């Protein structure tokens, strides 16, 4: 396989953008990524888009096609990938493979989203019967997404003695990290007392410990060695990338199912753990070598659990790490140094692309206002509906 490099990255700030259609957000992010790389559409040999079900794509998730038809009809392959909240990572994996195989020299990746307000609605065409888990969880018990994360958090309180204050500290860290990040939506610093004073949504999770939804877009340009001399800086290499799906017997409470079979020895959140392990293996590094972890913090609980699931720290050790500043930007592991989902709000299909943008800025030393000093290895991890996991390892 041929080595693959990140030639350029770009993003549109996260927020609510009612005046900007999703395709406009996507084009803004792509323009920024191309400018960053010093390249243009003329050099792009393929476009991979993370497909949204909320807007655009001609109703079929054809977002890449929509983009080239809008801005540059040049006959390149347009590949549209599904994967819900993990779609961005699957798009990166697809573009990586197109270049690593030697078939193409430069491929762009984009994820752009404008999220509907409130709870994410069921897709059109869903069946109102027991075969549809999303229907069943609502009618039988009214289980919201935060309820699933809350069940995990409550169990952690029981197993490891995690306190409400420590869980709140995770949300505080994300806001501190976002304070200087121009792409983050929520940048006002928070205190533990403010987090604990926010409304209780699903015990033990308060409102400020649950990620909201936002609009946003992110784009990358990946390329082969041929373009390295065009990139006048330390090259960032895609050292590993992988996607995975869930394992039978996984104990995680998978949205939107109401029950699962639990088998001993199967990893919790196996779709993500499997992807992380394969990506690290491909890069030839261990979990202890990771300087920065960009992970999907749908809730404050995820920030404690995931570094343990990936083997970066021991089970139950995250509380101590967090309380002692070891997950801060100047700690042993910089955890979501840009602020994470809690400070961005989730723009589903764009989120995993943004993770790779942030890692690139960090590894280049260009993460103004939020820089982790001397970082050499960055790991991303994301989970999507349908038990989709994705992970990317970047190295400088």
């Amino acid at each position, binding site marked *: 396989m041929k080595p693959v490099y990140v030639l350029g990255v770009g993003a549109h700030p996260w927020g609510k953008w009612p005046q900007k259609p999703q395709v406009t957000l996507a084009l803004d992010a792509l323009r920024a990524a191309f400018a960053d790389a010093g390249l243009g559409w003329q050099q792009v040999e393929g476009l991979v888009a993370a497909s949204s079900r909320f807007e655009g794509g001609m109703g079929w998730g054809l977002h890449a096609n929509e983009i080239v038809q809008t801005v540059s009809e040049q006959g390149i392959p347009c590949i549209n990938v599904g994967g819900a909240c993990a779609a961005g990572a699957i798009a990166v994996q697809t573009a990586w493979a197109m270049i690593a195989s030697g078939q193409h020299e430069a491929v762009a990746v984009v994820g752009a989203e404008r999220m509907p307000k409130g709870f994410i609605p*069921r897709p059109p065409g869903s069946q109102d019967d027991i075969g549809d888990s999303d229907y069943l969880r609502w009618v039988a018990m009214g289980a919201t997404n935060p*309820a699933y994360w809350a069940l995990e958090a409550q169990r952690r309180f029981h197993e490891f003695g995690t306190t409400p204050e420590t869980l709140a500290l995770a949300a505080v860290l994300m806001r501190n990290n976002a304070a200087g990040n121009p792409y983050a939506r929520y940048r006002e610093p928070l205190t533990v007392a403010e987090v604990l004073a926010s409304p209780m949504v699903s015990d033990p999770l308060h409102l400020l410990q649950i990620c909201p939804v936002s609009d946003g877009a992110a784009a990358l340009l990946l390329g082969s060695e041929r373009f390295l001399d065009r990139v006048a800086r330390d090259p960032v290499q895609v050292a590993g990338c992988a996607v995975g799906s869930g394992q039978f017997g996984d104990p995680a409470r998978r949205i939107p199912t109401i029950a699962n079979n639990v088998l001993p020895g199967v990893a919790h959140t196996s779709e993500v753990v499997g992807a992380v392990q394969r990506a690290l293996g491909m890069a030839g590094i261990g979990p202890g070598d990771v300087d920065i972890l960009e992970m999907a913090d749908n809730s404050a609980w995820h920030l404690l659990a995931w570094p343990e699931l990936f083997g970066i720290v021991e089970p139950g050790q995250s509380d101590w790490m967090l309380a002692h500043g070891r997950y801060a930007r100047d700690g042993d592991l910089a955890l979501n140094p840009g602020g994470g989902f809690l400070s961005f709000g989730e723009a589903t299909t764009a989120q995993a692309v943004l993770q790779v943008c942030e890692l690139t800025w960090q590894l280049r030393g260009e993460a103004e206002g939020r820089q982790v000093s001397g970082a050499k290895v960055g790991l991303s991890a994301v989970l999507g509906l349908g038990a989709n996991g994705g992970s990317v390892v970047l190295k400088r």
Partner: protein
Amino acid sequence: MLDQTSFVVDGLMVEGPDGARLCASVCDGCGTVYFPRPVSCRNPECSSKALQDRLLEGRGTLYSFTIQRYQPPALFRIDNWAPYALGLVELPEGIRVMGMLSGFDLDTIRIGERVKLVSECLFTDPERGRVMTYKFAPDISGRAPR
């Protein structure tokens, strides 16, 4: 019609002489028990994938819980909404099942408590009568699980 009862969704549960039961399946090939009834056995080690219907008594232990402080969106119908507890229950068949909790004081729920399955009315509808769902309630019978 108000004296009739129905369940929130067909195929979820039954109400027999011994009380409520969950509609589950067991795989003849690998012995895995599934709830709700799946289209196929999901065990990658199993090549038989021959499912048979089975009813679950629903006695187990509370693995985790949460309190829903906000009313869920409209697909969830409930009369007299108030915050309620949701539990995750470990059943002896190797399954963890989510369900509403009944008969608990919201401030004193403890992981590890023994629970049993009950059937309770969620809402009353002019067409469907009393619409029932399953819940888990404290098991004070002292009976050991199957």
